[in-house]
């Protein structure tokens, strides 16, 4: 068991899913309430990482982060090194990779709030943002937990994007899934088995939380 890779992966997944709450809520808010006629294009773009091969996504992220792109050059002038093959680069790639897993449950739960509740809140003098804060967010708790857990689990298991963007640098970009691949390549099956089992159990636990929360979401009880 490679603990260095394990903690790196947990750190990456935790950071990415936390950042996705901050990034995903505004995007989901816009997707839920915007009446822009071309909105579906943005919806499709956000969903792309679900169907795109991770290598394709990883390739574009690598190009965008490299020293030939404006973003890469800007970062280089700021920090003195490129984003590619760094932990920060990995975070950016993972944010894109897991975006739909946060945004879609968020948007679904925002959209499930009865329109009459929004109307009632407005008639009681609350602006749309205040309404979002006091009515929509509290009633979307299950969706928020689901989005957080799914993006955490999804980042935990990513492989292609990490390989393209991060390479395989121990302690910096070598995550568990890459480590398992390495172990198998060197015929170190018992170690691969151990690590794979840990990943399996964690993923199962996270998904159990998701389904458990969504079952309770329909019960109106004294819990908050």
């Amino acid at each position, binding site marked *: 068991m490679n603990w260095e890779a394990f903690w790196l992966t947990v750190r990456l997944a935790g950071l990415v899913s936390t950042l996705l709450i901050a990034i995903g809520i505004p995007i989901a808010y816009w997707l839920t309430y915007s009446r822009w006629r071309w909105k579906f294009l943005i919806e499709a773009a956000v969903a792309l990482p679900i169907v795109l091969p991770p290598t394709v996504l990883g390739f574009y992220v690598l190009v965008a982060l490299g020293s030939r792109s404006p973003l890469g050059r800007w970062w280089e002038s700021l920090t003195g090194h490129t984003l590619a093959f760094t932990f920060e680069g990995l975070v950016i790639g993972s944010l894109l990779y897991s975006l739909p897993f946060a945004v879609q449950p968020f948007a679904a739960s925002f959209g499930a709030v*009865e329109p*009459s*509740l929004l*109307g*009632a*809140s*407005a*008639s*009681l*003098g*609350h*602006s*749309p943002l*205040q*309404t979002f804060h*006091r*009515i929509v967010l*509290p*009633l979307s708790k299950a969706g928020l937990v689901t989005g957080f857990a799914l993006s955490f689990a999804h980042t935990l298991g990513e492989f292609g994007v990490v390989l393209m963007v991060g390479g395989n640098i121990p302690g910096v970009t070598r995550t568990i899934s890459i480590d398992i691949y390495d172990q198998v390549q060197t015929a170190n099956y018992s170690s691969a088995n151990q690590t794979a089992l840990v990943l399996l159990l964690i993923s199962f636990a996270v998904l159990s939380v998701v389904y458990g929360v969504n079952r309770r979401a329909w019960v*109106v009880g*004294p819990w*908050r």
Partner: protein
Amino acid sequence: MSADLEVRIRKRFPNPEGSFNLNVHFRALAGFTIVFGASGAGKTTLLDCIAGLSDPDEGRIAVGGEDLYDSEEKRNVAAWKRRIGYVHQDLALFPHLTAEENVAYGLRALSADERRTRSRDMLQAFRIDHLRDRRPAQISGGERQRVALARALVTQPRALLLDEPLAALDRPTKSLLVGDLRQWNQHHRVPILFVTHNGEEVFALGDEVIMLDAGRIVAQGQPHEVMHAPRLETVAHLSGFENIFDATVLALHEDRGTMTCRLETGEVELETPLVRAEVGSRLRVGVRGGDLLLATEQPHGLSARNILPGTIRRLAQRDVIVSALVDCGGTEFEVHLTLAARDALELGPGKSVWVVVKTHSCHLMGT
């Protein structure tokens, strides 16, 4: 400052039978104004426009002299700045908040102490103080209705919109709630628009009635004027005339204040109240099923002017009312009876009867 609510709007709105133009113009004074109409007539669309939850296509909405919407001035005050109380048909209580938190919700601008005092007072006034820590799912339908009303009233709105607020309640609960509402309205003289499709509620509440059909105001006035003296057939259907006939005026009896009309469905002649009409002109006669009498022998010495022989075709029971279809020489009357009357007179299909129609039960409408 006047508290009036002025509405003059046009809006296309979808309904199950296609789409209608909501096209209304009225002024509601302080007190109750009943908006009465069948479902799909545009009642909720009207309220949504006034509350600012839906935009009219054009027109003007003003409350207390302040414009909330004016298409010419390009003015459209956001819903949350309008200070108009709105109780939705589904009540729209916030399920994650307690009754007290629901009531205090609209008092955002006040201090916590003030908020608590005001909402507790309102909970007490509506006799739901004991429920303040319960959530909407944990209280009964009538109690939820009270919470929703208290929540809207505590903000001291400039006008109050109520969308069928009594629909789900039994009769005693209804009249209690209406009493509370009236009492509140005596201290807060604001217009209350009360939407219903229940004719009974119109009589129980009404100061002023606006009758809406397919997006248009078809009648407006005091309840007894609108409900008892319909001038349009749509009104007749809405207000419960089971019998509507096309008729021709045969003779005017100005000395008696009546006239004779021949129904176009057959040979039947009715003596009706006199209206401004000429011999030969056509009009419609509406008669309520509950205003008709049945007799099994030809009645004598009766004040009613119209006694028509006929045969019972069908009997149908609805709740505790028996509806008899009587054929009087080709003209069919729907007559409403009690169960006891049906049994005492041994009524059944094929039985010969006399239908008795009082002159003043005949309501005349222009065509």
